[in-house]
């Protein structure tokens, strides 16, 4: 099963932590990589900024760059009021980005290639949006579903469409990240698998392996791009949804 492209997503139990109401909780390879993800993020950000340099070092400069990127994205999308969600958005961005990038290492597990993880993150965003939306605007939050300037005759349809699009947000948000990471890793594994199978078949196979090998290299580069891009897409959509909670009227 070495060439099985699905095997890399297998969650292996290392030891069990117990069972609550028929649901088993265990220490798994996924858990190890989640821990690695936050260790990498926290370690990098806290150590690189420990100098508090007025003139930043390269590492500190990188940390500041990520900070400014997320801060400006949030401020431009959701306004200054949105900055109260900055720790959340920043955590989401760095978590998804780091998990995606760690997954690019061979034999490493990709945390974000599991729908339950991406769905949980998406639901965290949507729950925050709904709770804050009602807390801040009361029933005015429902204006989100009633765009202004729409003729009365088609308003019911528009409202239905708005509600459907709102409900589909957590699904699209989670499926986008999940699908991208899953598909990318499968394709990468399939092409790399071709190289292994072909080179095992002798000299002609070596020649034939050139194309899948080139594809593997190109796809690796593409996957690095996708890893960063999907983290950014997840972040900017989070900002857009948070903006809806802050300014519900269109």
């Amino acid at each position, binding site marked *: 099963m070495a060439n099985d492209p699905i095997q890399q997503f297998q969650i292996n139990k290392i030891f069990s932590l117990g069972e609550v109401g028929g649901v088993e909780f265990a220490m*798994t390879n996924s858990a190890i990589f989640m821990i690695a993800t*936050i260790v990498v993020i926290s370690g990098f950000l806290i150590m690189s900024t420990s100098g508090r340099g007025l003139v930043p070092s390269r590492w500190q400069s990188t940390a500041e760059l990520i900070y400014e990127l997320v801060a400006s994205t949030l401020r431009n999308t959701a306004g200054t009021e949105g900055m109260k969600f900055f720790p959340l958005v920043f955590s989401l961005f760095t978590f998804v980005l780091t998990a995606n990038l760690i997954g690019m290492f061979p034999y490493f597990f990709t945390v974000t290639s599991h729908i339950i993880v991406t769905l949980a993150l998406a639901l965290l965003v949507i729950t925050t949006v709904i709770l804050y939306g009602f807390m801040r605007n009361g029933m005015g939050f429902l204006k989100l579903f009633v765009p202004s300037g729409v003729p009365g005759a088609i308003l019911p349809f528009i409202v239905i469409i708005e509600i459907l699009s709102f409900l589909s947000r957590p699904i699209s948000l989670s499926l986008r990240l999940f*699908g991208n990471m899953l598909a990318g890793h499968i394709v990468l594994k399939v092409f790399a698998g071709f190289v292994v199978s072909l080179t095992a078949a002798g000299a002609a196979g070596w020649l034939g392996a050139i194309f899948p090998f080139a594809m593997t290299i190109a796809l690796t580069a593409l996957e690095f791009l996708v890893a960063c891009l999907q983290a950014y897409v997840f972040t900017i959509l989070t900002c857009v949804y948070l903006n809806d909670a802050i300014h519900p009227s269109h």
Partner: protein
Amino acid sequence: MALAFDWESMMAQQQTNAHTEVAGHGAEAGGNFPPFDSSTYGSQLLWLVITFGLLYYLMSKIALPRIANILEVRRDRIASDLGEAERLKKETDEAIASYEQSLAEARQKAHGIAQSARDTAKADIESKNAEIEADIAKKLAEAEEKISAVKAAAMGEVEEIAKSTTEAILEQVMGSGVAAKDVAEAVAAAKAN
């Protein structure tokens, strides 16, 4: 859309596997599609909550305030440095202005001193000139006086000499004395000519 195609075929494969296998359980399920294996959801969610919660805590309590502080300190420092530079520039401008003013004053003063020095020198020279000229004129007058005195004296003597010479000549020629009165008359007549 190679990516989408692959993914969908995997989905399809997973579906058939799920149907053919008898309630496959967890990691041992073999062909089961791992992301849809709900037996791992509990563990994943548990660890996601723990790790993401911890990450959120570390970010909001340590990392982000620290970076924000660094950026703020830098912004303040740059602003204050710019203010300081502005102030120093102003000071420099003032110093240059006062320097130029004192330079102009000094130049004017120097000019005045030179002018007055020139004026005194000129006045001095003029007064000395006048003195010398007066002196020369005085000496000239004295000399002229002396000359005219000498001349008059000489003239007087000439008359005396002419008289006595004429008397001597007449005595020698005529052998007798001639009245002095006649001689004096003749000399005076000759002198008048």
